[in-house]
């Protein structure tokens, strides 16, 4: 025969157990019906504990919802803003591209004006790259990224990126060598592979301290890879994972500009292709970034 005390202990433990998983069977009526004042008091206490916990949970999920909504609004805004920017940039690009012809007509095309126009065109390209980065971030974070594959030669894709950066590399003092390779055919999203190679190569030039840069491609059975190697400032080991995170930069923003998005976007794109991106680096010795992707991305 259990004593009243033992029964109370059982009861209390039962309720504590239920409350710990978010349930409570105690009601005000039950409490009022208890004959023992101690039982009443303790049941009231337990019921209020449960209510406090519920209240806390509700507030947390309201906060979470608010946060989710804010992130969504932000991403939508980023998306709209970056789309809006594209039309004026289109006009800029077309106008600038047409200037040489116009200047020549007026006999004003010379080294000065040519150099000036190249500068303007480069800045517009930079603007475009920033706008594209903004759009990509919002598409990636809202899960709207999609790849479009076509039959292409990886070597050709990477080589054309290297060629495009010839001038930039030269201006920064770096020699740029592309290690040629026989064609590597596969199903690739050409513009996305281009985008990743562009990101890696522009980083190599930016952080390369004017030292030689090498770009290469390789095929390893089912997978193929390309790499970009510089001999510049390098990345300390403790930062080597961080640099692939959103808005992270290992280089001080007082010295180097940029949004800190490139490597994160590159990683998202490479992983969407079923591939991996990695870095080998040491401070002041430079970095080698390698992207490995399957033949069929």
């Amino acid at each position, binding site marked *: 025969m259990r004593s009243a005390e033992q029964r109370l202990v059982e009861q209390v433990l039962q309720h504590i157990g239920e409350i710990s998983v978010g349930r409570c069977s105690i009601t*005000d009526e039950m*409490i009022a019906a208890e004959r023992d*004042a101690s039982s*009443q*008091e*303790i049941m*009231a*206490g337990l019921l*209020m*504990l449960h*209510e*406090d916990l*519920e*209240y806390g949970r509700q507030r947390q999920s309201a906060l979470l919802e608010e946060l989710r909504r804010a992130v969504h609004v932000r991403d939508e805004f980023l998306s709209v803003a970056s789309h809006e920017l594209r039309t004026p940039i289109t006009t800029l690009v077309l106008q600038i591209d047409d200037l040489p012809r116009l200047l020549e007509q007026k006999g004003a095309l010379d080294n000065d004006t040519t150099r000036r126009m190249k500068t303007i065109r480069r800045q517009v390209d930079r603007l475009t790259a920033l706008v594209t980065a903004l759009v990509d971030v919002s598409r990636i974070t809202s899960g709207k990224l999609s790849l479009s594959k076509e039959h292409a030669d990886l070597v050709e894709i990477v080589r054309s990126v290297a060629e495009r950066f010839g001038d930039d590399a030269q201006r920064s003092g770096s020699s740029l060598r592309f290690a040629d390779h026989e064609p590597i055919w596969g199903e690739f999203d050409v513009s996305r592979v281009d985008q990743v190679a562009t990101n890696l190569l522009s980083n190599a030039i930016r952080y390369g301290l004017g030292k030689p840069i090498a770009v290469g491609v390789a095929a390893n059975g089912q997978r193929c890879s390309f790499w970009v190697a510089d001999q510049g400032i390098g990345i300390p080991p403790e930062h080597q994972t961080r640099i692939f995170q959103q808005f992270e930069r290992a280089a001080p923003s007082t010295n180097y500009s940029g949004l800190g998005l490139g490597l994160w976007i590159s990683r998202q794109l490479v992983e969407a292709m079923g591939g991996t991106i990695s870095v080998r680096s040491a401070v002041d010795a430079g970095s080698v970034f390698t992207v490995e992707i399957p033949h069929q991305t």
Partner: protein
Amino acid sequence: MQIESRPYGADAAADEIEALRARVWKVEDRLFVYDEVPVQSLFTLDLLFDRLEELAAGLDRFAYVVDLRGVKRPGAEVRERLKQRVDRLNPRLAHVAAVVGNNVVIRAVAKLAAFAIGFRSFTSNVSVEDGLEACRRALR
């Protein structure tokens, strides 16, 4: 005027607000009584605690008796505000005496708040007179 058994809000009339504020008063030096309303709301808690803070302004030590007889068991949101308001006073509180009569459930409410805040000195009493005595002892 009679305060009814319903939660009062910011839309309360001026005379209702006066009647509510009148439920907190000074008994003697450093000693106050807070006669809680039957149905508490965030509004009434803020109103009455503001009044108590007005009356206790400048005192480095004081005590109060809170009469909880006739109070309906408050919900989580109200209890949270209550704890916040009392916590603000806690550094200066020499004693809080909760008059609960024979209402066991309300005694539990008072104790839970007391434990959550960590009162220096707390009693639950059956009558206002007992509560005042407990406060005077603590103030000596």
